[in-house]
């Protein structure tokens, strides 16, 4: 079986419109959430969101009028990951594409449903509202295996899992794997109706946490067969070493309080990879800032890893970018391994008895990261844990 290297990273996020800016702001513990300007938020519980401002798409073969903002984020992140990998030309049938989302072009969909006429100007088909993987294939002229996995908040991880398995089995030599979502009025209304939005800040694992902050962006990893990466002398950030997945089968938006589903995903990742729990130096949490998620996740982490494995939530800084979240967080895992530094959980003021973990409060921590675990959980309790290892 082939090993799978991460040789390129592309990130579009409120913390930065490229990987380096994103990472610097994460390590600095910058709160990148701001007042939403894209639509009127006066009727919602909050006016705060992880809105990406002054975005210029970075696409070479796609007309910006033919795709919505979610796809522009995805394509830009994919281009950046490709550039970052430093690869000279891709064989069109040896590169797989796995991308995911929660709502796709939510903002465009709103226009389509209202019949505002905007969609006519932009010529976006219903298919392209929902399918980002096809757009990535078109941007790069690819004709290999591709799939769109709209697994909501675990979409990025599932894309990475799918790409990992294809490369590992020799069915692809490279792959784009990631996720994207846009901060749309529809999403804002939906999450607001669920009463899951925090009024001002996302405070993962804090005793006074009140919910999540909706965000947007895209994260794309360029994955490559290790033999290919070594042969061409590629820079390797990290290696995808394993994964686990499960489903709570409990509730659509609330994790099972016994955390058994989350534990099952983590256990599967660790046991199938053949590592020890103590080998994991960093856990990039799902850490949404909701009372239910954080206590369930902390329970699972504490019971399997103990209290001392560093855990942090990127969402404290950039909000919850839905389908992009676990892909952006995967990027953070790779960068943590590469740079031997763990990003913080910011906005942490008071410890919660129900969250007995080391959440790396407020300040980044310099330490070697041999293995990082990326947790992501979606609507319906679809749980994932992807492991990245140093090379």
């Amino acid at each position: 079986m082939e090993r799978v290297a991460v040789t390129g990273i592309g990130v579009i996020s409120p913390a930065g419109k490229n990987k380096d800016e994103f990472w610097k702001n994460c390590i600095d513990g910058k709160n990148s959430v701001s007042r939403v300007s894209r639509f009127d938020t006066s009727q919602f519980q909050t006016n705060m969101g992880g809105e990406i401002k002054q975005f210029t798409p970075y696409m070479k073969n796609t007309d910006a009028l033919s795709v919505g903002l979610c796809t522009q984020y995805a394509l830009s992140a994919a281009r950046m990951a490709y550039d970052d990998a430093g690869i000279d030309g891709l064989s069109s049938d040896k590169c797989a594409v796995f991308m995911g989302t929660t709502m796709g072009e939510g903002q465009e969909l709103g226009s389509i449903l209202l019949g505002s006429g905007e969609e006519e100007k932009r010529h976006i088909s219903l298919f392209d509202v929902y399918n980002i993987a096809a757009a990535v294939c078109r941007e790069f002229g690819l004709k290999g295996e591709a799939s769109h996995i709209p697994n909501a908040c675990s979409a990025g991880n599932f894309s990475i899992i799918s790409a990992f398995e294809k490369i590992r089995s020799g069915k692809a030599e490279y792959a784009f794997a990631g996720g994207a979502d846009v901060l749309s009025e529809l999403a804002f209304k939906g999450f607001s109706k669920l009463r899951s939005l925090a009024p001002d800040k996302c405070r993962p694992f804090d005793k006074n946490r009140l919910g999540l902050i909706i965000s947007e962006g895209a994260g794309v990893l360029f994955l490559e067969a290790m033999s290919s990466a070594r042969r061409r002398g590629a820079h390797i950030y990290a290696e995808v070493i394993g994964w686990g997945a499960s489903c709570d089968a409990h509730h659509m938006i609330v994790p099972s309080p016994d955390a058994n589903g989350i534990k099952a995903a983590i256990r599967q990742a660790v046991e199938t990879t053949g590592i020890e729990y103590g080998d994991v130096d960093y856990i990039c949490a799902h850490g949404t800032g909701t009372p239910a998620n954080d206590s369930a996740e902390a329970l699972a982490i504490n019971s399997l890893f103990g209290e001392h494995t560093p855990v942090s939530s990127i969402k404290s800084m950039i909000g919850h970018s839905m389908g992009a979240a676990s892909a952006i967080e995967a990027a953070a895992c790779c960068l943590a391994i590469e740079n031997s530094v763990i990003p913080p959980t910011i906005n942490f003021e008071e410890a919660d008895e129900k969250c007995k973990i080391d959440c790396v409060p407020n300040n980044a921590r310099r330490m070697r990261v041999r293995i990082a675990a990326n947790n992501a959980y979606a609507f319906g309790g679809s749980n994932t844990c992807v492991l990245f290892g140093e090379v």
Partner: protein
Amino acid sequence: MGPALTGIGMISGFASGLDELYDAVINGKINHTDAAVPKLKEKGLVFTDNITKKAYAAIKAAEADSGMNCRDRDDMGIFLGTAFGSLASMEKFGRAAMEKGMKGIMPMDFINSVMNAPAGQLAILCGLSGINITVSDGSASSVGALRMCADMIAEGRVSAAVVGGIAERCGLYDEYIRQNGEEPSEGVCMFIAEDAAAARARGAHIYAELLGSAYKYAEQYGADDIFEIMSESAKDAGTYLKDIDFIITCGALDNEIKAIHKTGIKVIDIKDVSGETYGAGGAFKTAAAIALFERNEAAAVMVNSFGFDGFMGCCILKREGV
């Protein structure tokens, strides 16, 4: 060796079981079966939408058919092929949200509008605590789901799974399908899939074994591309095109017909009776293959799922005992 399909359930306007599907596809006799939302008593269904209710009923039928209880396994997965998730729910939620604002929407309307909501709801209703994946690749969605399911069973990540496809008509769906020159249709078709050796060990009736598949996206594709993917599928299945008895096709695609002519394999087109079931099409074609197997009219069948969106899925099924 691929997974075995040991249970089937379907709801559509053209067939609600293998016999009716066979009658419709082979004999051209559509019995206009009841595609309405079934009346179900389970409490948890009150918050689900129509497509999820139909899928649930189909899964329960497949479960009973297979002699398996999904809740008995702690690693039973679900792999659901759907082009748009519950687009009807998104229409309902989206219109209410945009036209009436916060007061016009209910929390479950938003939850049901998310593309992976049906898979999530079905996991809760059926006790499916293994891997939960939604595959959304347009016309190839169901074959994509079957392929992913096969890979995960082969890897030992799940010992069994619910797998299939769903499609539901609504304003946006109908408009999109018609813009692409097809007649919109809908339905749900679900299977129980499990490790073939384990299925045999428990004495399950095996409808088919999924031998292999091939899958890709191509913005433009011609007959050569189609022939190539069919050949790749045969290679993946460890067989040859000449050993395929039938190809169940995607309708009147000129390129597909040209590619199939090279092979000399007989063709069955179910779209004449089913209409364009889009994301669920591959699942209904798989069921049609099984209908042939049950009558010993074929030993190996290829299912082609290509369409106007660029996704191409091709899989090969074998009759048990051949």
